């Protein structure tokens, strides 16, 4: 299965990297972190050596036991990021697909499997999975062991801590120890455990201090770097090397504490993992938007000091103390603690696409965060596979999240309309299919509005906007301020400010339908549900993930399949008695369902109705997640489709109000926000 050439080139790459990091060591901004990263690579390099006792394990295996026996551990969850950082992940992922593995499984584990299939990995004598946090990990390690003929052991970690669970796990750790003894020909004595545990405990104390310092203002260690230091440490616990690096890190942080620039960044808690490929929002978030994660869940120190007099029981207790084990209440408790101790202003959940246990808990996590009154945002992405990355929506979500944090900082505010300078204010909303512009005066009264089709070139759209709006004789040089919103908001070069369509829809709708509390916005690309307060401010919001299901694009695709114009879909559906069942969640599969229905001679009216119902059901899910409160209003182009609105009313059990020009709400809101921003 492996190619010697691939192994040779993998080692070559590693050696080159190690050499580079040795040469550049003195220039490193955070030397301790760099040395830890390099050490991880060095350990990988060492595992390639013939005869080296090397173990590949899941990242929640207690590394102390490996260091006691002098074997070189590697965590499978560390290999995938290395491959992603070297931009090799897409290639090796393709190998797993060719071998018949599913695309849907966690890319961390698929990447490692693919790397093994291509021969990039060393021969590990022992593979150790842990069962408690991830099915993909234990399954992939077992498969890998079978393919390479190595030994596989699973540490089966029960979900509930207790004396029985501890005994069971301690027994397994004893068995693992026997394997390690067999591998090395050495049996560890009490002094070995004492040494390793003393180092581990000392390191634990230092890491606790590092985590405390991370929360202080101006700390130079934050975000992904801090996360990396904490997570990479897990593999080195019980070594003198790590203890010394932690001391170094602590000295470094202490010497710089309080010296950070006074930018007053937004402090957030980062949940689940970080993306490792180059296409990720972190530099933008940290540098351009001033958002810093001051805590994360994976570098959280959750275990008590280890007791060398009963090493196996003590390691079992450590594993069983994991807050992600058992009922979600443990994780929620940890999150509340991290929120409180970190003084955070918002919580971000990076939902790595294959992580079932992490993402499965998002609803209770979101409810918990919002219960303590903080904004929450969920980002859908993949930590390893850059081909899964969609920046447009991620950016809208993040900006919406930042706007919520900003609003919280500012405190309750009243509308600034009517207080602005006399003149005109422009709101521009660039959607995926249409561009909208609204001009209001200082009192918020609409004086003009336009709608264009965007086509493929945003430059051309901008030129038209300029020509028709900015350069129109009645408005030339009289527009005091412009706010851009929508999918293409960053392309509007003449806007003073970009605000997400989330805030703009909330603001615009509150003006048109006083008393609105919930908005469903179904546009060409996105579906959103927004909960608003009495002033048209956003309380919380949810957005659809990357796929087109439940959006205007979905309706368009289905209309095309039915060979009708998008405008005809609603009237057609209106004629149907009962809808045909469209059960698929994916627009590609739904299309094939529609084709099947056509082949079975189902009336087009019923299919059209089924299509509308599926969009409504999809939106209902979002309404539920945001907590639908009346009045409910709908915006976006899809609200022209009467049947979708009716179906949504049916499933939501409430009347849904649709303004006369639902497509213009975003631009109108943007214009109102321009008045407020300019006036205040």
């Amino acid at each position, binding site marked *: 299965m492996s190619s010697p050439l691939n192994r040779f080139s993998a080692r070559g790459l590693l050696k080159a990297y190690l050499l580079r990091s040795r040469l550049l060591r003195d220039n490193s901004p955070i030397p301790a972190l760099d040395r830890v990263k390099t050490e991880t690579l060095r350990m990988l390099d060492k595992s390639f050596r013939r005869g080296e006792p090397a173990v590949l394990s899941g990242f929640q295996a207690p590394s102390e036991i490996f260091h006691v026996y002098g074997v070189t551990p590697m965590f499978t969850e560390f290999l995938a990021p290395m491959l992603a950082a070297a931009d090799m992940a897409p290639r090796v992922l393709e190998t797993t697909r060719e071998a018949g593995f599913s695309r*849907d499984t966690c890319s961390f584990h698929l990447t490692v499997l693919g790397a093994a299939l291509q021969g990039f990995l060393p021969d590990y004598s022992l593979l150790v999975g842990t069962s408690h946090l991830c099915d993909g990990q234990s399954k992939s390690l077992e*498969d890998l062991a079978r393919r390479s003929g190595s030994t596989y052991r699973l540490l089966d970690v029960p979900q509930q801590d207790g004396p029985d669970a501890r005994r069971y796990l301690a027994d397994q750790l004893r068995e693992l120890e026997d394997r390690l003894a067999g591998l090395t020909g050495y049996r560890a004595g009490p002094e070995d455990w004492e040494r390793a545990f003393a180092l581990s405990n000392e390191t634990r104390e230092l890491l606790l201090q590092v985590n405390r310092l991370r929360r202080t203002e101006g700390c130079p260690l934050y975000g992904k770097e801090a996360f990396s230091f904490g997570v990479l440490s897990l593999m080195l616990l019980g070594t003198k090397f790590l203890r010394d690096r932690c001391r170094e890190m602590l000295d470094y942080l202490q010497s710089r504490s309080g010296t950070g620039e006074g930018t007053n960044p937004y402090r957030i808690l980062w949940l689940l993992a970080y993306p490792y490929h180059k296409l990720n929002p972190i530099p933008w978030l940290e540098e351009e938007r001033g958002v810093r994660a001051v805590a994360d869940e994976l570098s959280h120190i959750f275990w008590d000091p280890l007791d060398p007099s009963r090493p196996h029981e003590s390691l079992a207790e450590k594993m069983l103390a994991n807050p992600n084990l058992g009922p979600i209440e443990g994780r929620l408790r940890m999150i509340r603690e991290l929120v409180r101790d970190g003084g955070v202003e918002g919580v971000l959940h990076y939902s790595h696409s294959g992580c079932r246990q992490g993402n499965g808990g998002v609803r209770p996590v979101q409810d918990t965060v919002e219960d303590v009154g903080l904004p929450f945002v969920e980002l859908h992405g993949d930590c390893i596979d850059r081909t899964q990355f969609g920046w447009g929506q991620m950016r809208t979500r993040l900006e919406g999240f930042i706007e919520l944090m900003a609003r919280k900082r500012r405190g309750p505010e009243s509308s600034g309309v009517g207080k602005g300078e006399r003149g005109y204010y422009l709101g521009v909303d660039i959607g995926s299919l249409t561009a909208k512009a609204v001009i209001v005066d200082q009192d918020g009264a609409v004086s003009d509005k336009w709608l264009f089709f965007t086509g493929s070139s945003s430059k051309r759209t901008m030129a038209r906007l300029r020509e028709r709006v900015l350069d129109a004789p009645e408005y030339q040089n009289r527009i005091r301020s412009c706010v851009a919103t929508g999918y293409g908001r960053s392309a509007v070069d003449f806007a003073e400010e970009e605000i997400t369509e989330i805030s703009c829809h909330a603001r615009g709708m509150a003006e048109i339908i006083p008393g609105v509390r919930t908005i469903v916005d179904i546009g060409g690309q996105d579906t959103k549900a927004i909960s608003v307060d009495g002033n048209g401010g956003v309380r919380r919001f949810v957005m659809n*993930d990357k796929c087109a299901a439940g959006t205007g694009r979905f309706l368009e695709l289905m209309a095309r399949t039915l060979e009708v114009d998008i405008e005809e879909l609603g009237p057609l559906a209106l004629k149907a008695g009962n809808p045909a069942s469209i059960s698929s969640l994916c627009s590609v599969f739904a299309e094939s369902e529609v084709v099947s229905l056509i082949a079975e001679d189902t009336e087009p009216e019923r299919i059209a109705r089924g299509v509308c119902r599926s969009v409504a059901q999809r939106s209902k899910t979002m309404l539920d997640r945001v907590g639908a409160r009346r009045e409910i209003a709908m915006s976006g182009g899809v609200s022209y489709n009467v049947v979708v609105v009716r179906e949504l009313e049916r499933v939501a059990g409430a009347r849904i109000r649709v303004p006369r020009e639902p497509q213009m709400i975003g631009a109108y809101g943007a214009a109102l926000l321009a008045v407020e921003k300019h006036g205040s």
Partner: protein
Amino acid sequence: MGNTVMKVGVQREDPLLRIRQRAEAFIRELELEPPPSPALGWSCSYVPQELILAAGLTPVRIPTHLEEAREQTQSYLPPNLCPYVHRLLQAGLSGGLSHLQGTVLVASCDPMRRLADIWELYSRPGFLYRLEMPRREDRPAMEFFLRVLKDFRLSLQDLTGRRIRAEDLRGAVTVLNRTRRIMRELDLLRAMPRSAITSAQLQRIALCVESMSRERFNEMGAAFLARSRKDLLRECRALPGMRQPRLLLAGCVVEDDGLPRLIEDTGGRVVADSLCSGMRHFRGQVEENAASPLEAVAARYLHRLKCPRMVGRGERVRSLVSQARESCSEGVVLHTLTFCDLHQMEVPAQQEALLGANIPCLHLEREHLSGEDSGQLRTRVQAFAELLSRRNRGLSVAATNADRNWNG
């Protein structure tokens, strides 16, 4: 010559046809059985039903085949958890389980753990027991599982207010062993050269068994078998086998008869299965004369044919190949549900092993548990049956590699 035989076959009443019709009547009777009361719902084949029965409750599989809509559940669980978990949640949220005394959910996989959380937090469940299930089966695992079962027994006693004695457990073991024996006999009727019952029928029976009184099923099942056995012995052996290719259906949970029916309608014939909603659930007995019935129950559940959640990929793959051989299956349909990591991770190894054994296989991944899905699925299944029939007739004597590892 062949025509003459055919004619004779048509003129004489086919006893198999009679048995199938009788089976149909039997299933309709089963389907009319009233829901048992008091009953306790379960979600995973690893729930030791003997303990529930010994507590005076009827174990009932949480019905997931009744609900279609999955959208409601998506505000609680992400769409990329398997459809079975979504359907279970749908059943929990819809209020359709109010006739149950409670539910037992198992920490069988990551999505099931999260399901239990949502169930607990958002569906106000009354009695909910979260069962631990080891993934190993060695001595420490056995000791741990035994302690888990003791705790489960205590919880059941608290729920019902009555003690579960050793003889209660022995009684339950006898009843459920009998149910499993009857199911095994029905399984063998399906496996005969001319299947006396279809796989779709067996799947419906399996569904009924898990939602009715087991004692009642045992009576009805035994009576049906007694009537059918006589016919079969007398007449069937002489008849030639059927032409439809024999298939083994293996993989993820299949909730209703949709998939086997689709296979049987398009020219294939499922003669054996390895599904946790099919015969994998019923294979393996509890030792009846054991000194400790609880230990015997624990041993059955820990050592039975394993779901991929358990360690033992190699053994599982080997047993798939040997089951295909033992059931004289000409092809294997590997069925997975989208987002079921546990099953999907073993598919490549299964495909490789089947290829090595020269057994063609078709991997189907379905987004739904029930129903016949799309026309696309129908085409793939039918083409697979056609391919096997062609091999049967010797038209492709030198089957190419592509033929053998056929993925549709």
